[in-house]
């Protein structure tokens, strides 16, 4: 698996990829030539560069005149950086790509985003874009993850309801062994748990079962996966299937379950800020990521392709076949902003703390 090569963009001309001509992006010719004039593209992203090296290399092979600079940031840093750079008039990234859907949506809603009707738009689901400003680029299921060495297959819950039952049924077995994002400290964790509150009819009970086993809450997905792998914890919920799959490739003792009652689907949202210095290059990159050719590499990176004409293990198409109607993608739109209201957010957190018994 040729996952990693040196990322020297200049050398990428030599990379050969067997890609059929018609799977390439349908960007208008004048946009491409304007992008080549600009010659540069600055990407701010929360996606670990390790996952997207093949994607970036292929882009460089396709558009050798556009030098791509990739900045790996966490989602809060990304948002902070953009609003402060725009306020200083110092220019900003050309392409913002983040898994913090709410913060990306807030940028779009606060008029930071440039509207661009991507020619790839017809190949995306209806819910996957907002006013041609914010685009969903992936289709990442949210999973339960467990340690295969230490958890028997029959112990593994297959749905949120089962999770609550399993935990409540044997609190001693699971005490201190269950992990998740801390909604107080992690924006993504907050977004996920509020979706659970919306979709799980027995959420109050589920929540209490978390409290009963003393769920361990973290800010970083790496910390959670690491501790499930090591056996310090046994089971994690609300974990990105994409990261877990990438980790599973290195350590097969990691087990992944997509809950059968409902599986949340998150997307990495892309947007082009109005302050972009290289807007055309950004448009070309957006079209490329959404194109069949780009999405095939997204699927290979286990970030899950959002296009239904891309086949393979890590695609919306295969998830739809497997899980069908239980997939619950978060629609791209102002509904993501509900809990950015301070009072609502603090109210939810207070209720959460009471339920799991930390307050």
């Amino acid at each position: 698996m040729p996952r990693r090569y040196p990322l020297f963009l200049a050398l990428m001309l030599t990379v050969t990829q067997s890609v059929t001509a018609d799977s390439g992006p349908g960007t208008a010719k004048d946009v491409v030539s304007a992008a080549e004039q600009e010659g540069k593209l600055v990407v701010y992203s929360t996606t670990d560069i390790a996952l997207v090296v093949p994607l970036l290399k292929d882009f460089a092979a396709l558009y050798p005149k556009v030098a791509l600079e990739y900045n790996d940031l966490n989602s809060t840093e990304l948002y902070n950086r953009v609003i402060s750079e725009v306020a200083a008039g110092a220019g900003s990234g050309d392409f913002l790509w983040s898994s913090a859907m709410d913060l990306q949506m807030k940028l779009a809603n606060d008029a930071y985003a440039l509207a661009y009707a991507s020619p790839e738009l017809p190949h995306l689901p209806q819910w996957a874009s907002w006013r041609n400003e914010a685009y969903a680029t992936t289709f990442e299921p949210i999973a339960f993850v467990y340690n295969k060495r230490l958890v028997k297959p029959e112990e593994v819950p297959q749905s949120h309801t089962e999770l609550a039952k399993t935990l409540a049924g044997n609190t001693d077995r699971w005490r201190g062994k269950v992990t998740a994002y801390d909604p107080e400290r992690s924006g993504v964790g907050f977004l996920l748990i509020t979706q659970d509150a919306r979709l799980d009819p027995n959420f109050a009970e589920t929540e209490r079962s978390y409290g009963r086993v003393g769920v361990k809450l973290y800010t970083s997905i790496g910390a959670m996966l690491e501790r499930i792998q090591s056996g310090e914890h046994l089971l994690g919920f609300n974990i990105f299937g994409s990261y877990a799959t990438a980790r599973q490739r290195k350590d097969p003792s990691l087990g992944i379950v997509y809950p059968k009652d409902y599986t949340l689907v998150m997307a990495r949202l892309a947007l082009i800020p109005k302050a972009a210095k290289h807007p055309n290059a950004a448009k070309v990159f957006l079209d490329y990521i959404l194109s069949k050719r780009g999405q095939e590499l997204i699927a290979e990176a286990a970030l899950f392709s959002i296009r239904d004409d891309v086949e393979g293990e890590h695609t919306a198409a295969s998830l739809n076949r497997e899980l069908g109607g239980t997939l619950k993608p978060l629609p791209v739109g102002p509904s993501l902003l509900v809990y950015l209201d301070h009072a609502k957010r603090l109210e939810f957190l207070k209720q959460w703390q009471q339920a799991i018994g930390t307050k």
Partner: protein
Amino acid sequence: MRQSSWGRVAVVLTTGLAILSPLGIILYQSFLDGPFFQGSARPSLSAFRFVFADADFYRAFGSTLIVAVGMTALAVPLGGLLAFLVVRTDLPGRRWLEPALLIPIFLSPVVIAFGYVVALGPVGFVTLLFREAVGKAPWNLYSLASVTVIAGLTHIPHVYLYTSSTLRAIGSDLEEAAAVSGAGTARIAWTVSLPMVRPALLFSGVLVFFLGFELFGLPLILGDPEGLLVLSTYLYKLTNRLGVPSYQLMAVVAVVIMAIAFPLVWLQRRLLGASGRFVSVRGKGLKSAPLRMGRWRWAALLLVLAWLVATVVTPLAGVFLRAFVTNWGEGVRLREVLTLEHFTELFDYPNLVRGIVNTMVIGVVGGAIAVACYAAIALAQHRWQSRWAKVLDYLVMVPRGMPGLVAGLAFFWVFLFVKPLAPLRATPISLWIAYSVVWLAYGMRLISSALLQVGPELEEAALTMGASRGQVTRDVTLPLIRFGLLGSWLLVFLIFVREYSTGVYLLGPGTEVIGSLIVSLWGTGAIDIVSALSVINVVLVGLGLAVALRLGVRLHE
């Protein structure tokens, strides 16, 4: 004299600008209800009201106090003892031990904490061995007590460095006199050496206490599973509390921390008011014979080694182990999971390679320039009976009270919004300035400690002979403290290479350094790369230390 005063005032003003501009932004930000650069932000006390009404704030404050007091109580006596053992006694192997004693200073706390998780966590390899042998491991790594003890043990070298450089600077003739009069080593340590190093112990005690208030890496990782909060991690938590970044709340916490810092500086000044009492470098040679400890020397060695095993070997073993395996923990056979892949991966990423290069450059070159700046400031202050000197003295302590994370953010704003500085933002120079200011108090104290030991009569003699103030500085004072300067450079190098929190908000293409890359990658979950980078960081610093020793920066003479 008049002219050199103007030079000194210029130094004070430059230093003031570098320190007060980020401080000013933070202060201003704390009295607004939104980010200062957004038009919608209005003056308000709402941020203060929010923080002071928050139960978590008081919880975090209490924990911070416990940690800071506990680690100071642990580090100061042990650091002082260590310095005495190494500098004054016939401790076996003390020459080759000394570089090892400094290792905890230049290990990033994030790295140490991560290493402890792999070694002493609930399924760490030491814990598993212990459990096999005894049945149950009696410690909980994720408790406030563990954080305090680890912080205390890892801060011993700070105290050691101050105290040992003072001990070396003062002649051992008083101790020899006591020995000749028949006093035992312990008695000499207690009644002769201790009073002489009291200024160094006080300085380092206050410093360690400060460091306790801005401890970030250790509680971030070790406090995570149990939800332990200290002020800095509370501040970090505030970033997401309201969903969007709440700079005003973070600024309030920073202001609170600084409000604690100022009285401490004042206290320190009071305690050290009559520092002239301790001058003991006289115009004569200082050759010393080590004090004998008899058979106690082996017990002392054992104590030092035990500390090194607990503070250095254990976490480093954890980090190295993690760097060479794909996974670890309960039920994993390590032989089956060995790999070198994490290291080969590193070189696939230009930003990581740049980070390694930048780290070295900022450490070596930036460290040297920083020491030159610190020396200029210290000399400006040296024997200057002026109100300006007092102002300077308080000024340099200020940034140390700012958590590195917040100082980094403030500098990010400074470089963003001050147009003439904007071109520096994407270069390592911006990082260097931030580092130099954040570590100003630390570097200054190193140099001041050396200056404090220079007797005024040597300089006065030169002045009497008609030398100008500049000549005195160049020909008398500087040569007398040159070993102090070299030692400071080495120490600043180690600190800059290790630094992790200040660079987090300045991190971007061109400003990557290993420390902030580790924090950032930890957040995204690339633990493999984090462990490999940590190992490289440790190895680089080890090499730097070896080179410095080879070049003759000998801390043990």
